């Protein structure tokens, strides 16, 4: 039965287009990029992502790369736009960052699930690691408009890797930074500050986005405090549209463990239902 429900999750608004690059600016170690996407911007909700072909025409990279949508504006000067925060990491993301304004990319979006929004105002905490902060600013805005308190906690290995643009901060009640090397905010792993902040802000719902290990630690804290935890996970994706089954994570569905696709049933998932621990996952699926 729930398999039937899953089928309904396909993002029916996803479209494949040639999107023009309207802006490409280096911000610390990241590139903030803006794409003209027309109608697509209309159907974007915080948490959705886009999938972009990389490497150009004769590229040896045949798969798309997924990028969380940082912001979507449906009626800007240039029609609808989406904005991404790209870390130049391997060949694909470096290629993307090297493009110029006026170049076009093959883009599909919006894809995936969006962050669930509390039906009544709540105290929310948004936790982002590295470029994982990208989808949280649009979420913050939405939550604030719904009357929620929004506390944001951003962490990274070092100060420059925290992505926190000015315009993004206007919706948050508090912003806490934390770096592994102490170059900004609290010195230490982002997760170390969380329990204290939860108590301080009386947090009811946690949203998180970042590396899987961070999400896993946050989930433990969320469980300790018995909080709802909506997290945006990142598994390698081959297709981004639900046809290849590579992007799965083990999730508890009723009494069973199912391997759900993070591109269709995610990237935003209920942290409490994910089997975070690898041993348990292996055991569960090889039962």
């Amino acid at each position, binding site marked *: 039965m729930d398999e039937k429900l899953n089928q309904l999750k396909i993002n*029916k608004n996803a479209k494949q287009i040639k999107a023009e690059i309207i802006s490409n600016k280096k911000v610390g170690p990241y590139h903030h990029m803006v794409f003209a996407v027309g109608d697509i911007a209309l159907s974007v909700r915080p948490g959705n992502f886009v999938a972009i072909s990389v490497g150009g025409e004769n590229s040896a990279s*045949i798969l798309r790369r997924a990028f969380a949508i940082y912001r979507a504006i449906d009626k800007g000067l240039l029609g609808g736009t989406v904005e991404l925060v790209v870390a130049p990491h391997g060949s694909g993301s470096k290629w993307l960052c090297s493009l110029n304004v006026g170049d076009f990319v093959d883009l599909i979006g919006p894809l995936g699930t969006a962050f669930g929004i509390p039906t009544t105002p709540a105290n929310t905490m948004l936790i982002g690691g590295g470029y994982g902060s990208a989808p949280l600013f649009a979420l913050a805005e939405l939550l604030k408009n719904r009357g929620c308190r929004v506390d944001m906690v951003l962490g990274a290995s070092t100060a420059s890797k925290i992505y926190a643009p000015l315009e993004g901060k206007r919706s948050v009640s508090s912003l806490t930074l934390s770096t592994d090397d102490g170059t900004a905010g609290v010195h230490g792993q982002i997760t170390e500050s969380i329990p204290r902040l939860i108590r301080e802000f009386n947090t009811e719902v946690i949203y998180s986005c970042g590396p899987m290990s961070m999400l896993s630690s946050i989930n433990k804290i969320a469980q300790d405090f018995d909080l709802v935890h909506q997290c945006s996970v990142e598994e390698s994706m081959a297709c981004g549209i639900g046809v290849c089954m*590579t992007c799965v994570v083990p999730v508890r569905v009723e009494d069973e463990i199912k391997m759900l696709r993070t591109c269709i049933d995610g990237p935003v998932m209920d942290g409490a239902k994910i089997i975070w621990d690898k041993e348990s996952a292996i055991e569960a699926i090889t039962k």
Partner: protein
Amino acid sequence: MSTLDFSTKIASKRFSNPIFTASGCASSGQELSQFFQLSEIGAVVTKSIMTKARNGRITPRMAETPSGMLNSIGLQGPGIDVFLERDIPWLVENNAKVIVSIAGENVDEYGVLARRLRSVQGISAIEVNISCPNVENRGQVFACHPDTASAAIESVRRNIGGELPIIAKLSPDVTDIVEIARSVINAGVDGLALINTLLGMVIDLNTMQPKLGGKTGGLSGPAIRPVAVRAIYQVHQMFPNTPIVGMGGVSNGRDALELVLAGASAVSVGTATFGDPTAVIKIRDELQMLLLERGFNDFRDAIGFAHRASS
């Protein structure tokens, strides 16, 4: 330009055009239907289904490689019951031609699956996947040996009844693919699907361990196209009357034409769909154009044309 009869046949079944999805690369069709009408392509080949629901292999399940990728899905799927109850009706309702791919852990399971399918409405053929590399041991790859390959096919043949064409899907990871083809033809298949993925491995330089959870995976994509063309050519040369559903790295019309000229009666598109959801449609249109440019007015005249040497 003149017109083209773009239809093709696999045994008794006719398909409006020769471009199919590849098993495991279109899930059960629904996800792609938001990008195009499934009735526009020759057929949807479903992900290989087994008797029971199956979670597949542990992640990571994919690694990109130069002009290709490795996958180790391990036949995740809902099992034949849910499949027949949910996916087939949906496909039929959406006017898709359906080829059901089946996979068994042993010879009997193939028979059980065939029996479940024998009276199902709306199926055009059965593809028997005896070549999935993502299983616990290579001994389970039936297509590795003529005797196990034919045993699996015979089990299907005995149980299927009627005139549903049986297509055997073979692995390129064998010393002599013609010998395997011969064994399954003798066991009574109506067609062949060539090729499944090649067994490969990527090592992660950070962990210094195999990158895939399942260690090895199946290599697909343009990288393997020359191997697919060779396999199709070899098998068609020896068995020109056995229709072949060709696949392996087809990402545009010219690639598809290559497989057709080598001997494919239809062409399945797998990995290319991951890069471009509408790849099948583009490939269909490009192939049609290339055939017309070359003066063909019946698709079937192009099948195996590379064997009719002018030299």
